[in-house]
């Protein structure tokens, strides 16, 4: 009898708790964010902090769940295949905007922010970046992270080789490379592997910009500017790390941080990791424009590195929750937090005093942008993943002398026809 009463009580309690739980769950909107800023990424900690604070402030109403996706290539693949398969990759996600990913704007699965981005939220973004992210009147992604990729010099190694200042001309650049090579190190870090031959692609971009100017990418890829740029790039490979062909970007990063290479190019997001993993190198860094190989001086690659996007929803409450979170994430306070912790740069401006070494590095990047004659997007952003994949494959053949500049550029042009 007593047992029966206890059982009845427990059953009732279970039913009540389930109903209460279901009610609470029904009220709380859970947003998934497949995110690359996780694990060892320099932005991981501040992003987690922002998400945790947001979740704490919205308990029972909105919760953002980060789905860790630490591999950049795999992440991009997931976004592409999900959208192609007719599935939203998540409530919030990021991608690089280029001629191929602009196809995402055609997907009904991607939210259009054009009516949401108003008032102070709209004012927090530079108008030029919003214009860049708007395609046929649709704003299906918000310009968030900016890539600025000048040349990085390890001044300690340069001084050891007898070079006391950053090369200002191409002649000085090659002379410095010769002296560094004589020291027994590989002067210039390169990599042709991965999906975009990242570091080598950045070098090519910089050379082409100094030869072709601000609108270099509007020229046909078979233009003599690119032929000459390839010749310069080939010369650079005679000073590159021995494993540059086929190497992932991490290999080039590693050579630079281990002082096996002295000249390198990458974005400001590498500042914090460099300070952590190569403090000796970090304390001797200098950043500058690539000396002119042609007629144009003081240019630096600058491009939209990460766009924030959201999964379309017909549920107004869910839509409002997504917008609420994105407003928090793109607020100057959040952006400042992520930026200062990682060294990454963003479209949303914020004020800061360059106090720490990473912040001083960021300040230098900003100065380079401000003082630049012009900025250019990199090859991948300008021409898309198919062109850069072909570039990455053929550059190894080209530097090995197995194909000519003309044939390599013709092959890239063929890819662009698609």
């Amino acid at each position: 009898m007593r047992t029966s009463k206890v059982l009845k009580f427990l059953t009732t309690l279970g039913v009540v708790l389930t109903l209460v739980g279901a009610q609470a769950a029904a009220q709380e909107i859970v947003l998934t964010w497949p995110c690359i800023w996780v694990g060892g990424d320099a932005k991981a900690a501040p992003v987690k902090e922002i998400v945790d604070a947001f979740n704490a402030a919205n308990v029972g109403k909105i919760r953002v769940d980060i789905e860790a996706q630490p591999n950049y290539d795999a992440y991009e693949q997931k976004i592409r295949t999900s959208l192609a398969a007719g599935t939203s990759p998540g409530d919030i996600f990021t991608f690089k905007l280029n001629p191929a990913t602009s196809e995402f704007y055609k997907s009904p699965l991607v939210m259009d922010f054009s009516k949401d981005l108003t008032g102070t939220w709209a004012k927090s973004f530079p108008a030029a970046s919003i214009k860049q992210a708007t395609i046929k009147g649709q704003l299906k992604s918000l310009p968030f992270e900016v890539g600025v990729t000048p040349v990085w010099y390890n001044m300690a190694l340069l001084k050891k080789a007898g070079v006391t200042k950053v090369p200002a001309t191409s002649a000085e650049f090659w002379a410095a490379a010769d002296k560094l090579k004589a020291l027994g190190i590989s002067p210039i870090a390169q990599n042709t592997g991965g999906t975009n031959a990242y570091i080598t692609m950045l070098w090519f971009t910089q050379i082409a910009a100094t030869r072709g100017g601000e609108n270099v990418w509007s020229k046909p890829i078979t233009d003599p500017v690119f032929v000459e740029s390839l010749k310069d790039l080939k010369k650079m490979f005679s000073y590159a790390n021995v494993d540059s062909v086929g190497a992932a970007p991490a290999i080039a990063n590693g050579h630079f941080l281990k002082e096996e290479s002295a000249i390198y190019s990458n974005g400001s997001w590498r500042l914090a990791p460099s300070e952590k993993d190569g403090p000796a190198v970090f304390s001797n860094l200098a950043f500058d424009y690539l000396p002119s190989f042609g007629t144009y001086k003081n240019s630096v690659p600058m491009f939209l590195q990460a766009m924030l996007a959201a999964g379309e929803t017909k549920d107004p409450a869910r839509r409002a929750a997504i917008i609420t979170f994105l407003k928090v994430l793109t607020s100057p306070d959040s952006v400042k937090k992520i930026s200062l912790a990682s060294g990454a740069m963003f479209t949303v401006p914020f004020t800061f005093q360059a106090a720490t070494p990473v912040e001083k590095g960021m300040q230098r990047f900003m100065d380079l942008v401000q003082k630049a004659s012009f900025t250019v997007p990199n090859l991948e952003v300008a021409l898309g993943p198919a062109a850069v994949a072909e570039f990455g494959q053929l550059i190894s053949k080209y530097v090995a002398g197995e194909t000519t500049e003309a044939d390599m550029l013709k092959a890239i042009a063929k890819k662009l026809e698609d």
Partner: protein
Amino acid sequence: MARSRNRNGLYIVLFLLPVLILFVLFFVFPLFFTAQTSVMKWKGIGDMEFIGLRNFERLFTDDTFQMALGNNLIWALASGFIQVPLALLVAILLNRKPKGWGAFRTIFFLPNVISAVAIAMMWTQVYNPNHGLLNALLAPIFPDLAHYHWLGVPATALAAIIAQSVLYIGYFMIILMAAATNIPIELYEAAELDGATRTQQEFAITIPMLRGTLVTSATLAMAYGIRHFEATFLMTGGGPAYSTTTMGIVLFQQMDELQYGRAGAVALILIAFGTGMIVLLRAIFGSKDPMSDASQ
């Protein structure tokens, strides 16, 4: 009697139905969808546009795809005619039960339970031009190879990946060892009485008796070779200069470039290529199993 047979037939259909539904849903339907996309221009998002056989035409006139076809053929041949014979050799040696044969069997099979990703990463390190094991071993004899970049030079990259792959013979070794244990012992006893040596016995009894299993193993190995993807993708991404690319890599790259129509065409060619090669292999070597004849 007839009713019982009908009922049995109904049971067979009922039991097969779930598998049949799954097969249609997850194999036949995707196959037809792939065939449909192969004649379309489709970015994966938005509408498809019918373009006839243009995707196939483009692929067959593309140098990279031709290279991938050639590499797939090399992979299939290497898997079928290097990996399987190596497995046979080891299976025969271990079947003689030398000292420690159990441990060797485990060692040879061990790579089959290790992730392909881990193995590919390990071999990338072995081939590393700066601190790789291979160069360290070769450098004292061939000083020029001290910093040779095996995976970075088109001439050696494909051979380097295939070499690491065909060494993993464990799976076929186990199949062949299991089959060899079923060979009637009387055949060996009779051969011994006739004065045949162990080597003669292997050539005259073991290998002919394993013919059916060998053909099956070679078929499987070649099928794996044709659809090869992981190690190449992880070790070279199909480079340098597409020298290691395969149809699987081309398919992946087409999807990566949002060329889903062309990716569908690659998939169909891959299926046709694989089927053709297996049919050819069975036609040449036959599928008759001497072992089943012996047991009858």
